[in-house]
């Protein structure tokens, strides 16, 4: 009578990713690839407009519209009093096509006036659209952010999005597995952002290519869900296919009561499954990386890829000390673009602008940590543009309820509506020409925030401290 139980117990230990993959497998194809069931498809107006339009043009229907959710973030203006008009070229067209196609397809859209509007990877977590154990795709490379909730989420292209919309599946070859174990207690003034910057500095921007990454270890368990999302957000910056943190009591506490989260009996049933969402003891990963972040301090990028980072108290590296010739050539090109010299201390490099926002660091905890530094102070007179862009309209509302907006406004920041904003340059609103920007975003690529703009990526606390100093600064030195 108890035979079935004995049989399941003999199964080889599996990784969390392995379990989720098995659970979603619809078919194994002749070539060894798998057809994987997709639980959620997230769309934003930039790529979603094209995907929905192309699907409609090819006379194909959505397989299951109730599993598809849209929001506006990339093109939508973030200036107060915004309308469909946008400074980004062809932006209005994208918003309107997206709105019309979403309505025709019968999907939920968090539109411009919807209190749920926000950056895809922020709002779909807050609304419970993403849940532990779900597969979720979006035509956006930072979709892995939602792995912070224990979802298996990854970025795809527009054609794959269309495939997902039409079939509720994707055809995939299982990526290799990689566990990144992060232990130790980070120092004061450091956050999830500093952990991930240090990690990418160590493994390099290709360190995770072809792998699905599970973050584990005491430092990860200690992070809030928001911090875990920051960590997973940047996994794509070291090439990871996706990233996940096994859901635990903090995750379940975060998810419970969210608008689209299950409740009542459905919640109990979900919890029964979710409690098994962890890597079995003895499961084997294709790659293991271990990082000790004991006493880790704030980090700042000095170059034009997210692996070119140093401690805030450190210096721009000596090129001769970089052994790999390709990395050395890349570092040389980065320094030319960034206008920095080898050996130069990072602290004290003058900045022109500050951006606090993006799917990496614009959640309530991020705004709180920046506001704690800024409270009762004003930004340096040399700063020509300083803006705070909440990650979602809901974050904005909560921040205002706490009075955070007053702190930012009094310090000299603009307080915006939610969206991607100047995380990337869309051809409209810009930083002053050639500006050096302290930014809480995830990409410091050449021209990412505008032609010639020099981006230093860092945590909200470090960006806030830098805004006060008018230069790259150590948040630990701002005395409370």
């Amino acid at each position: 009578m108890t035979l079935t139980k004995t049989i399941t117990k003999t199964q080889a230990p599996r990784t969390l990713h392995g379990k989720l993959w098995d659970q979603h497998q619809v078919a194994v194809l002749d070539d060894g690839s798998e057809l994987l069931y997709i639980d959620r498809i997230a769309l934003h107006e930039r790529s979603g407009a094209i995907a929905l339009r192309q699907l409609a043009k090819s006379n194909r229907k959505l397989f299951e519209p109730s599993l598809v959710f849209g929001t506006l973030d990339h093109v939508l203006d973030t200036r107060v009093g915004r309308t469909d008009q946008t400074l980004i070229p062809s932006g209005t067209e994208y918003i309107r096509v997206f709105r019309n196609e979403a309505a025709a397809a019968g999907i939920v859209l968090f539109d411009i006036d919807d209190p749920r509007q926000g950056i895809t990877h922020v709002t779909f977590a807050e609304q419970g659209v993403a849940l532990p154990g779900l597969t979720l795709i979006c035509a956006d490379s930072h979709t892995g952010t939602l792995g912070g909730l224990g979802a298996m989420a990854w970025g795809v292209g527009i054609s794959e999005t269309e495939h997902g919309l039409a079939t509720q599946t994707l055809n995939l070859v299982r990526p290799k597995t990689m566990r990144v174990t992060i232990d130790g207690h980070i120092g004061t003034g450091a956050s999830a952002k500093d952990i991930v910057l240090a990690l990418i500095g160590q493994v390099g921007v290709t360190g995770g290519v072809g792998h699905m990454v599970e973050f584990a270890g005491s430092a990860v368990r200690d992070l809030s869900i928001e911090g875990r999302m920051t960590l997973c957000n940047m996994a794509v910056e070291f090439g990871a296919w996706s990233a996940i943190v096994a859901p635990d009591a903090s995750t379940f506490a975060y998810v419970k009561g969210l608008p689209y989260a299950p409740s009542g009996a459905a919640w109990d049933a979900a919890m029964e499954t979710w409690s098994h969402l962890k890597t079995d003891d003895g499961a084997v990963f294709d790659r293991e990386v271990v990082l000790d972040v004991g006493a880790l301090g704030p980090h700042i990028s000095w170059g034009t890829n997210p692996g070119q980072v140093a401690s805030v108290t450190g210096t721009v590296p000596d090129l001769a000390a970089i052994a790999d010739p390709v990395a050395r050539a890349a570092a040389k090109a980065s320094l030319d673009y960034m206008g920095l010299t080898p050996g130069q201390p990072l602290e004290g490099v003058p900045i022109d602008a500050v951006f606090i926002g993006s799917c990496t660091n614009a959640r309530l905890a991020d705004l709180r940590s920046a506001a704690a530094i800024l409270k009762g102070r004003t930004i340096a007179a040399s700063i020509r543009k300083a803006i705070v862009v909440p990650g979602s309209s809901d974050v904005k509302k909560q921040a205002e309820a706490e009075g955070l907006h007053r702190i930012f406004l009094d310090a000299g920041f603009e307080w915006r509506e939610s969206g991607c904003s100047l995380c990337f340059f869309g051809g409209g609103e810009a930083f002053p020409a050639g500006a050096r920007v302290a930014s809480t975003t995830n990409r410091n690529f050449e021209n990412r925030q505008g032609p010639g703009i020099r981006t230093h990526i860092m945590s909200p606390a470090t960006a806030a401290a830098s805004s006060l100093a008018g230069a790259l600064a150590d948040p630990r030195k701002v005395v409370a």
Partner: protein
Amino acid sequence: MRNTPLTTLTGRVAPLMRANIDTDAIFPSRSKMGVDETDVSRFLFREWRFTDDGHERPDFVLNQTGRRDAVFMVALDNFGCGSSRETAPWALRDFGIRCIVAPSFGSIFQANCYRNGIAPIVLDRKDVETLGSLADKDATMTMTLDLSKQVLETSGGSRFLFTMPSGVKTMLMEGLDTIGVTLTRRAEIEAFQRNDVSTRPWVYVGNSSG
């Protein structure tokens, strides 16, 4: 999707020997592209190819004699990293590039290539560097790709063998409409879903247009 079949390919080679060429560089965010545009080649490497006022930069490889009609591109590690924008492979494809050779690729970019008739071929960095310098020295050099034999051969006789998973290779060689192929399994997907609704009911709490 620009998935027309690719089996063999012969033509010129454009070497762009940098690492970490991201999709922002390949297709800048500020490109004024309409939702329905079908040829986006003019945005390809916009910032590197043209000055702000629209003049060609003569030192950029795709502006050089013999490279304007390149069908191959050779680059260093992590080509196509960064943003998932499929407009990057579209711009390459619309320009005429059907094969990119690099030591590694950004994973979303690589997946996008297969669906758009572009072969993303991985070789050892040493071989990529050899190929890059051959192409760099001789703008008239051509190369031939044979996907079924998994080989690249230059007009000078250098041969490079590569591997490619069979599923994506077929996708390229047959220019498959992958949605159509998957929909032949519609009954299987529906059966999976029916079963799933009873085992994971909480997945289906999302309501439609509400």
